[in-house]
């Protein structure tokens, strides 16, 4: 049903880290970088699509307006989207829909966050109606609890070892080592990973992503607008998937206490996480075999193994083989997390799905420097926000 191609004209990031500034600064810095990269003046932007942060007061809730005001009101229309870790993709889709529906020619998408140290915790106050509050209160279930459940099940079912998980972390450290936007830039050994403290069995400190400050921005435009700017061979958006589960979902998802029940209505043919990339492949008319690289959401290093299978790069239980064969390493058939992934960046929730888009764009342009994937033609991103927000973007050149 696609009628219009939407082009990535520019991308920009603020380095990830712990900078102690207001999130607005990271967002505006990323936005200015993306505008400069695109060669588009801020005053020409017709639509600003912000990915919200819930941690930074009202300015975070109205991210689109906050960035627009900080860049200087230009009368643009705005949106502010929230989908937890998938917020960046939702904001990108909001901008893409405005362009494809003919309501604007060029739009700016921005996400940025200032994240507290330690476990992500709910805001203060008693909220006994809020499952996100209750899972902390009644179970002490932090975010890593859920990642650990997935990891431990994988180990017991498929024989994944602690060493396998650590090797994912080591690979991503090697990838992110030279990325100037990454926060953690040090090579690691499997032994060093396995020597780090256990947080949620079987996951160790170095296998769980930290929380970071950071910002990322993307300038998107209609093909017509790009042509007028003289851009004829840019990076294009082939798909944006923002699917939700189909009932009954049998995967325990943050922040729920229980899955749906499959006693009355049988389970759908595919699990939720498998459907995320599937919807993107369908829209793009492409398959896993066409992907030159992938940026996936390694909230834990074990989760990356799941994504190999959920992206269709391997059969269920075959993720470890892919890793050991070097398929997902730089130089392999389909390198995964060439940026270093969340392992090297840490979470900056509203920015990270956009940071994935930045990385794939640089790879497709051939400007990724030491971490360049040779002859990269098509890349896929995947992540997931709690409460059933799937997210996957396919870019091509």
């Amino acid at each position, binding site marked *: 049903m696609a009628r219009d191609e939407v082009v990535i004209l520019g991308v920009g990031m603020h380095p990830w880290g712990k900078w102690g500034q207001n999130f607005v600064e990271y967002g505006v810095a990323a936005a200015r970088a993306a505008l400069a990269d695109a060669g588009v003046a801020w005053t020409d932007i017709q639509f600003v699509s912000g990915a919200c942060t819930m941690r930074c007061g009202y300015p975070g809730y109205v991210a689109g307006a906050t960035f627009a005001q900080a860049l200087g009101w230009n009368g643009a229309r705005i949106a502010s989207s929230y989908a937890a870790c998938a917020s960046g993709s939702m904001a990108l889709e909001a901008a893409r829909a405005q362009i494809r529906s003919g309501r604007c020619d060029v739009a700016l998408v921005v996400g940025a966050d200032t994240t507290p140290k330690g476990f992500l915790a709910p805001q203060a106050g008693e909220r006994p109606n809020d499952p996100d509050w209750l899972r902390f*209160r009644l179970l*002490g279930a932090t975010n890593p609890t859920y990642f650990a459940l997935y990891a431990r099940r994988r180990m017991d079912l498929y024989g994944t070892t602690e060493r396998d998980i650590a090797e994912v972390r080591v690979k991503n450290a090697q990838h992110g080592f030279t990325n100037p936007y990454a926060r953690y830039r040090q090579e690691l050994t499997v032994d060093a990973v396995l020597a780090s403290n256990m947080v949620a069995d079987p996951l160790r400190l170095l296998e769980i992503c930290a929380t970071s400050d950071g910002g990322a921005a993307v300038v998107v435009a209609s093909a017509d607008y790009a042509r007028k700017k003289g851009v004829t061979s840019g990076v294009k958006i082939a798909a944006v998937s923002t699917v939700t589960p189909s009932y*009954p979902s049998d995967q325990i998802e943050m922040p729920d206490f*229980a899955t*749906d029940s499959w006693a009355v209505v049988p389970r759908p043919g595919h699990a939720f996480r498998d459907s995320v990339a599937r919807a993107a492949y369908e829209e793009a008319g492409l398959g896993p075999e066409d992907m030159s690289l992938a940026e996936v959401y390694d909230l834990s290093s074990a989760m990356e193994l799941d994504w190999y299978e959920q992206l269709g790069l391997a059969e269920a239980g075959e993720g470890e083989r892919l890793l050991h064969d070097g398929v997902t390493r730089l130089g392999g058939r389909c390198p995964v997390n060439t940026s270093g992934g969340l392992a090297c960046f840490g979470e900056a929730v509203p920015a990270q799905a956009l940071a994935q888009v930045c990385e794939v764009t640089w790879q497709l342009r051939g400007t990724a420097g030491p971490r360049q994937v040779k002859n990269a033609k098509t890349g896929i991103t995947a992540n997931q926000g709690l409460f059933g927000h799937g997210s996957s973007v396919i870019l091509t050149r």
Partner: protein
Amino acid sequence: MSTDKPKVPAVEGWFESNGPNPHLIGGQCEKCGTISFPREKSFCKNPSCDSTSFRAVPLSQRGTIWSYTNACYKPPAPYVASDPYVPFGIAAVELEKEGMVVMGQLAHGVRVEDVRVGMEVELVVETLFATEEKELLVWKWKPVAS
């Protein structure tokens, strides 16, 4: 852990702690029979069902471990942790009859080394934390003595 303080559930209406057969309380749609936990009271979660009537039903006391982990570090508030902090286990348990997976802490003293995916567990009620005036209770999962 046990004291003479009055014992009250840490959450209202989610589980039955009195008597010999403690259990979780689910909701069952009076129209399509779909079961939910926590108990749905307003709208059926089955997308093809428009029911708004539900009955409370006891959930199975036994299930099998779908997966498990532990909390090596003290969880942040609103969790009320013991002082000094003692790590605890967490399990996601599959209930066969209900066709669902329900989370819960592992019973006091049960370590991750003691369990595995597929192991049979049963529901027990234990103290979650205590205040000046009372002990707050919660459901937990415990391996079935074999």
